[in-house]
Every structure is written in C-alpha cells, then in structure tokens.
C-alpha cells in the first residue's frame, strides 16, 4: 500500500479488544495493518477512525505499542459514540498515523512535566510509556492528571502502578470527590505550583480542555519555563487530516499537518479563537 493511499483511503482494520474505561469512554485495540505498510506512529500522533457509514474522527494513539493501534475514545457525538460501540471482531476504517507528535527528541535529558485533563491523558500516555521504556534517557518525570471525578479517571490500574512504581512523580486530582476518594480535589494548577523543578531544564507537554492548557501554560511560563519549551496539543475538528482540505487551517497553520502539537508561543493566539 502506498503512503498516499494510506493517508487518503481508509484501511479496514479489525478490533482486537474493547475495554470500558469510564461511563462514556472506551479503549480500542486494533490490529496493525499487514506487511509493515504503515509506520508505528509516534507519541502525540493520531489516526482518523471511520466507523463505516457514520463518519470519521481524529483519535490519538494512546499507547506506543508497535504491534497494535490503541485508541481511547470518549463518546461525545455520532462518530465517537459509534466507535464506542465497536466490539472485538468488528472492522473499521483507519487512516494514519498523522501529525507531528510530541517532541520526544528534544525531551531527552530534560525534566518533563506532563499535564493532562480528562481524555487528554490518552495522547500523553504514549509519552509516559516511551519514557518508562528508556528511563535513563530522560530527567525527572512529573505527571499531573485532572479528572472530573474518581470514576472518570482513565487507566485506573495503570495509574496505580505508576504511582507505586517510583519512576515518576504522579499527582491525580479531581474536580468532584466522592465518599471513597482520599486523593486530591481541585484544579491541576494547584498541584503544579508545588512541583520542584528547574524551569530552565524543563519541558512541558499538556493536553486537555483549551482553558486548562492556557492556565497551565501561563503558570509554567510565569515560573520561568521558556514559551518554546511549552507544548500543547490542539485537538480542533479536522476533516482530511492531510493538509489538503483547509478545514483546520488557521492563517498559515494546518492543525492536522503542522500539529496537533505546537509550542505555546506559536498558537497562543489560536487558543483564544472559538472555532476554526
């Protein structure tokens, strides 16, 4: 299969497993396309997933496994709901992987601060996997994760392993606690404020609601992290995903082709725009 057809024509791929994460989100594991025709995909890249007859949605890779595509999808509309109904053995159309991904090369040797909100943990999870696999290549790893409530946390088993593992400093906070929750309650910025890191050494990657990313970026820049070391993933709606249709174009920037990951100084103005 040529690169071009991979990018514009969906490949039919089989669902190997579907696991419920929360009331409205699922993790799908897809088989890899045969014959090594498609690259493994890098942390921060995404596929266009097509439940047949419904429509396409951009969904990030949520694991860096080379032999599978793993995606976590939150049902918010027609396409994402249809993706959430897929079961093992079902087939869907897949194009990708697309996008530039997180700056894993620049991250080497640096202190990494990852801040995820809600479903925004999905595109950051491959970063965590990559760092854990090659731990000594990176400096300190701080992970801050804000969820709506304890029941709406993704990857709960994995969070517990990460917490116990000692390879990172993981802080989870929720907006609304419940009777069984003995963890933190509040917005992620409250936890971020106390993390001990050298701003000059630090690289931030954040993904979540844009309001959250703005608050996090501004706080980190306020602490002295260079705006060029602050990376955000812009997950605005897109169509072709190949920089052709212009649906996600803003000025000279195509979110799909040039992004979805940008340094904050390049896109700060976009984060104030309602729709592209």
């Amino acid at each position: 299969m040529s690169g071009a057809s991979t990018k514009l024509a969906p490949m039919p791929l089989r669902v190997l497993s579907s696991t419920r994460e929360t009331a409205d989100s699922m993790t799908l594991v897809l088989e890899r396309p045969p014959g090594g025709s498609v690259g493994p995909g890098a942390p921060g890249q995404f596929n266009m997933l097509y439940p047949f007859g419904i429509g396409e949605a951009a969904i990030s890779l949520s694991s860096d496994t080379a032999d599978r595509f793993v995606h976590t999808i939150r049902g918010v509309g027609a396409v994402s709901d249809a993706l959430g109904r897929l079961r093992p053995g079902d087939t869907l159309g897949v194009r990708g992987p697309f996008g530039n991904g997180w700056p894993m090369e620049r991250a080497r040797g640096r202190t990494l601060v990852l801040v995820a909100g809600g479903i925004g943990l999905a595109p950051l999870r491959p970063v965590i996997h990559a760092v854990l696999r090659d731990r000594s290549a990176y400096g300190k790893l701080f992970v801050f994760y804000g969820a709506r409530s304890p029941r709406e946390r993704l990857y709960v088993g994995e969070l517990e392993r990460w917490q116990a593992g000692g390879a990172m400093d993981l802080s989870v906070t929720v907006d609304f606690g419940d009777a069984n929750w003995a963890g933190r309650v509040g917005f992620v910025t409250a936890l971020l404020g106390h993390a001990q890191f050298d701003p000059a050494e630090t690289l931030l990657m954040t993904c979540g609601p844009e309001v959250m990313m703005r608050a996090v970026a501004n706080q980190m820049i306020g602490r002295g992290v260079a705006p060029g070391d602050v990376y955000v993933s812009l997950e605005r709606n897109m169509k072709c995903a190949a920089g052709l249709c212009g649906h996600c174009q803003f000025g000279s920037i195509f979110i799909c082709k040039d992004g979805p990951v940008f340094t904050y100084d390049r896109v700060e103005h976009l984060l104030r725009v309602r729709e592209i």
Partner: protein
Amino acid sequence: MKSMADLIREHPFLAGLSDEYCELVAGCAKNVVFEPGSYIIREGQPAGQFHLLREGQVSLEVYAPRRGSIVLQTLGANDILGASWIVPPYRWTSDARAVERVRAFAFDATCLRGKCEADPALGYALMKRFVPIILQRVTAARMQSLDLYGASV
C-alpha cells in the same frame, strides 16, 4: 536544635522573608500535629490562627444538609491553610479536616495581626505572599466550577 525562626524560614511561604521578620513572626508560631480525621478548623468558628502545612493532606469541606460533607479542595505540604484570620469578622468559612497525619506551624492570629499593624512593612511582606496564593485559588476554583472535563475535549 533549630529555633522556631529557623524552621519557619524553610517553609516556601516565607521564602525570602528577612531574618528580622522571621524572628518576629516566629514569636506567634508553634508546632502542631493533627491526627487523621480530626478537624483543624470548623466553619463559623473564630479564625484564631493560620497554618503553614508541613506534611499530610487536608481537605476543605462544607457541610450540606442531606449531602453531608462536600470536599471543595484539598491542600498538602507547603500549602497555607486559612485566610479568614486577616479579614473581619475573623471566622472560618469552611471546615478543614486532616485526611492524613498533618504537621503544621500554627500562628496565633491576634499576635500576627498585632505585629502587622505595628509594622506595616511586615504586613505588606506577608500580604504579598498571601495575595498570589488567594488569587491562584480563586482562579483554580473558577476552573473547577466550569466542569471542564465534563464538556468535550
């Protein structure tokens, strides 16, 4: 053994405060420990002290009939607990409960207010430390109330 002034100087809230002022405010401070489950402050009670947390998690709660205690926010090591001691009528506006064993410095409010009134430069140095934290908490509380993660990505 370290003096109280030496100890409080190490708390990030007081970072950069002059030795003279550290000595001065240390005169209002004592070490306190709260066991898990115990209340550090209660809503409506006089705000007789303020705390600099050293370790352990604290939850700020309000009690609502039929719903019980609702956690508004949690605090931990290096946080400050309580601002109601600064403004009349000096009463707490929420409960604070120790979730874990909590160690803190407790400052007597009347003592501290007296020293701030007597030396406005000390008062200003402390307010410059309080205001950014209060502002950050207001902003964070607004974000929390937006229910951001409930909305789409």
